[in-house]
């Protein structure tokens, strides 16, 4: 008797424990996506899509009315973006677009409101990887502003909306975008995004260091432009700057990846990365060898840090540049205003960290195209257009998504159209020194009166956005900066874009490793080129998409 009592006590404990485990597991599994509201029976079926006409106000009002007829009063979207600290318009542009649409709706008695959640990060690659991993589970944002190079991957996987049909109604907008930039939003002939910004990558020269070393900057930009001043000359200048004790380094550049800045070397040596006839990526042995040789030689002679790829932007790269410890920085147009809004500079009199003033930036820096690799080649620059894409599940968190999917997608597209308003793009270009993507924006930027109104925040912007950009505007909107943007726009005539191919990011990753190895002298340039080829070939899938052309030149010397 006693024994069966003991047994039943254990049985009870065991059963209770099992029930607790089952309950916990069931609770975990029941975190399903929001349940659908039961559709209320209505006399006439409410519209679930709207035919776009190309007239923005008509379209957005129709979409709003359709949403209202379906019982929707609030629509929430989220936007993720990444970039330098001044590029907040990559998220605030969507916020402003939503506010403008809300205003149109309230003016037209449509009782629906759009709500935008934002997230802004520093590095664009990890953000893309996060979007990639979260999209299938419905946890990714509805809008993403990121580099165009990811469009092919996202489109191939069906993660972003094909907006070709919507865009076809808005031909006036399309025609206002610069054609080369608009090519970046296409994949296999379909359109998957709208351009958000672009930029150029100048070579920045420190005027004070050059003067100290006896290097004459007069007319240098033109000499670079017509191919007279090449990377051989860069080497000699860097050497002189260092040997005269005027600078610690000759050249510094970005960290962490070869794309996009360092890819310029390939184009500067007349090479290519992509074969449009076969649609395959290209390893141009000669161009890559010369590029790696330049980096290797400069590192051996102490002109570029061996651990350049490891440097930190905020504590090393930018402070070194703004303090004139390097003659040359391979930078981007957006750095011009980043140096003004971020405190990379330690004031020599007070010892306090602060941003440079626009006057100081102009006083310190001279800028040219990326020089030709050697004589007979052309100078280049590289643009990496940023684009806004729409998640193919955009609006999924909103009610009745299954039936109203088309409406949510159309609304998302209309938000993008509004975010492409000339003034929004112009504001972004000025405060973050990127280049405009459409002609109407360029016109606004050239309008002094408009720029002054921007400076005083007297533009028609929602208060929410004004508050968030007021500090940046105060620091960056002034004639010196707009003059800079006007001065660099010629670079777009020389610009290249890195290949649009789903496997390009993987190739770029391998190139980055090669650069790091030659800088640290872990491999010499020829071995590094072989390493790139071996690594590509080691992955059968990648090897199938890459062609290897050319030969390592014999008897080529540098400088």
């Amino acid at each position, binding site marked *: 008797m006693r024994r069966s009592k003991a*047994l039943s006590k*254990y*049985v009870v*404990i*065991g*059963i209770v*424990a*099992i029930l*607790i*485990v*089952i309950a916990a*597991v069931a609770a975990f599994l029941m975190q399903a996506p929001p349940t659908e509201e039961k559709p209320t029976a209505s006399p006439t079926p409410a519209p679930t899509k709207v035919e776009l006409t190309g007239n923005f106000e008509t379209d957005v009002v129709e979409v709003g009315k359709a949403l209202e007829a379906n019982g929707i009063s609030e629509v929430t979207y989220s936007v993720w973006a990444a970039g330098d600290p001044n590029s907040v318009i990559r998220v605030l542009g969507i916020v402003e677009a939503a506010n403008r649409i809300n205003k149109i709706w309230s003016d037209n008695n449509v009782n629906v409101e759009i709500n935008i959640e934002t997230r802004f990060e520093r590095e664009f690659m*990890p953000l893309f*990887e996060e979007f*990639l*991993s979260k*999209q*299938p589970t419905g946890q990714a944002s509805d809008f993403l502003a990121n580099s165009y190079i990811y469009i092919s*991957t996202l489109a*191939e*996987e*069906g*993660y972003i909306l094909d907006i070709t049909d919507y865009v076809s109604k808005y031909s006036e907008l399309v025609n206002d975008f610069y054609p080369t930039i608009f090519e970046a939003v296409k994949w296999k002939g379909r359109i998957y995004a709208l351009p958000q910004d672009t930029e150029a990558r100048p070579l920045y020269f420190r005027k004070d260091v050059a003067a100290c070393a006896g290097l004459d900057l007069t007319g240098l930009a033109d000499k670079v432009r017509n191919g007279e001043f090449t990377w051989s000359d860069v080497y000699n200048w860097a050497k002189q700057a260092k040997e005269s004790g005027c600078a610690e380094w000759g050249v510094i550049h970005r960290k*962490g990846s070869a794309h996009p800045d360092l890819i310029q070397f390939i184009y500067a040596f007349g090479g290519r990365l992509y074969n449009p006839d076969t649609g395959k990526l290209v390893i141009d042995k000669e161009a890559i060898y010369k590029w790696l040789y330049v980096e290797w030689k400069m590192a051996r002679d102490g002109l570029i840090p*061996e*651990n350049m*790829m*490891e440097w930190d932007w905020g504590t*090393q790269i930018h402070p070194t540049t703004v303090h004139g410890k390097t003659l040359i920085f391979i930078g981007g147009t957006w750095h011009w205003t980043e140096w003004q809004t971020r405190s990379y500079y330690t004031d020599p009199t007070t010892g306090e960290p602060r941003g440079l003033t626009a006057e100081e930036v102009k006083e310190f820096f001279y800028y040219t195209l990326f020089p030709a690799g050697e004589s007979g080649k052309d100078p280049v620059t590289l643009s990496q257009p940023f684009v806004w894409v729409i998640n193919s599940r955009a609006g999924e968190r909103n009610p009745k998504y299954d039936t109203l999917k088309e409406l949510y997608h159309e609304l998302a597209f209309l938000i993008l159209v509004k975010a492409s308003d000339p003034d929004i793009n112009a504001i972004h270009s000025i405060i973050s020194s990127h280049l405009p993507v459409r002609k109407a924006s360029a016109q606004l930027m050239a309008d002094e009166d408009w720029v002054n109104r921007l400076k005083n925040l007297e533009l028609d912007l929602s208060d929410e956005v004004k508050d968030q950009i007021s500090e940046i505007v105060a620091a960056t909107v002034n004639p010196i900066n707009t003059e800079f943007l006007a001065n660099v726009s010629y670079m777009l005539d020389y610009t290249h874009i890195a290949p649009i191919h789903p496997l390009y*990011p*993987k190739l770029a*990753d391998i190139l980055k*490793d090669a650069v790091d190895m030659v800088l*640290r002298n*872990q491999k010499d340039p020829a071995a590094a080129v072989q*390493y790139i080829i*071996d*690594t590509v*070939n*080691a*992955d*059968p*899938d990648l090897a199938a998409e890459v062609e290897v052309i050319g030969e390592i030149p014999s008897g080529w010397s540098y400088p």
Partner: protein
Amino acid sequence: MKYKLKDFFKKKKYESLIFILPALILIILFYILPVALSVYISFTPLKNWNLDKYLGTVIGTRNYERFFYMLQHDPITRNVFLTTIVFIGITLAINVLGGLLLALATYFVSEKFSTAFRTLWLLPRMAPIAVYSLVWYYFFHGSNIGTLNSFLMYIGLIKEPISWGHDIIPWGPWSIIIFVNGLVGVSFGMIVFTSAISNIPKELVIAARVDGASNWQISTRIFIPLMKWHILYVTTWQLLSLLTTYAHIFLLVQWGLVSKQYGTTWSLYIYQIAFTGRTDQGLAAAAGVILVIVGGILGYITLRILGFEKMITKPRGDI
């Protein structure tokens, strides 16, 4: 007489089953099922997390073929493999022998000191991983802001800062990751062995002392033989743990402190293939399955070598 599985189904052993059932359910749900899923994924072309598109397709052993191809031809994969072997071998030795040494050493000194000393050794394990990694990131940093570099330059041993994780290939990054992990791992063995030693009857030690035994003799002749179970446990546990751990190394590689090729172990490599760069989950799953198989084999070998079978067999009363 060894307990056989069918004994469990005799009425007598039902109680044991009920006791282990909750844990069994958890293991099935959170380990067996995911492993089964991973094995399945390794036979699909899953990439970019596109479950809808790829999970339904089975491509046979193609991912395994790719992985073995990379092992043969890709210098990075080869170096990761080499790094894994060196890392596990040396760190395991440090963890087990170091833990043993600490446990024995603190036995022979005063209680107060040894408690404080052991607590100190627990600190690396208690610190949040990111904080812990940050400490060593700055310690081994390759520029003159690195603690080690500034100290060595201050005492005049070196003129220029050395990039420990990149310049001294491969032992630079290897030493760093072994050191960082070893410091954490030693405390596990130390705790288990300390507990084991404290359970050994004091009479044995007193008797040995009376016979004139030295500390060394007591350690090697009395303690270690009596800690066979514990040494087996710690060795097997640490071996399998080192095979799969990557949290501490992950941050050091991520922040660029160590060379990617020589700072990445197999488990971290799987993470990198799945979550970054390649985002090729099928390939990562294949590499993961191979890792599990290797782990199983190594665990089995360890148990054999250290006499697990002998230990669990009841002694025969007739010998």
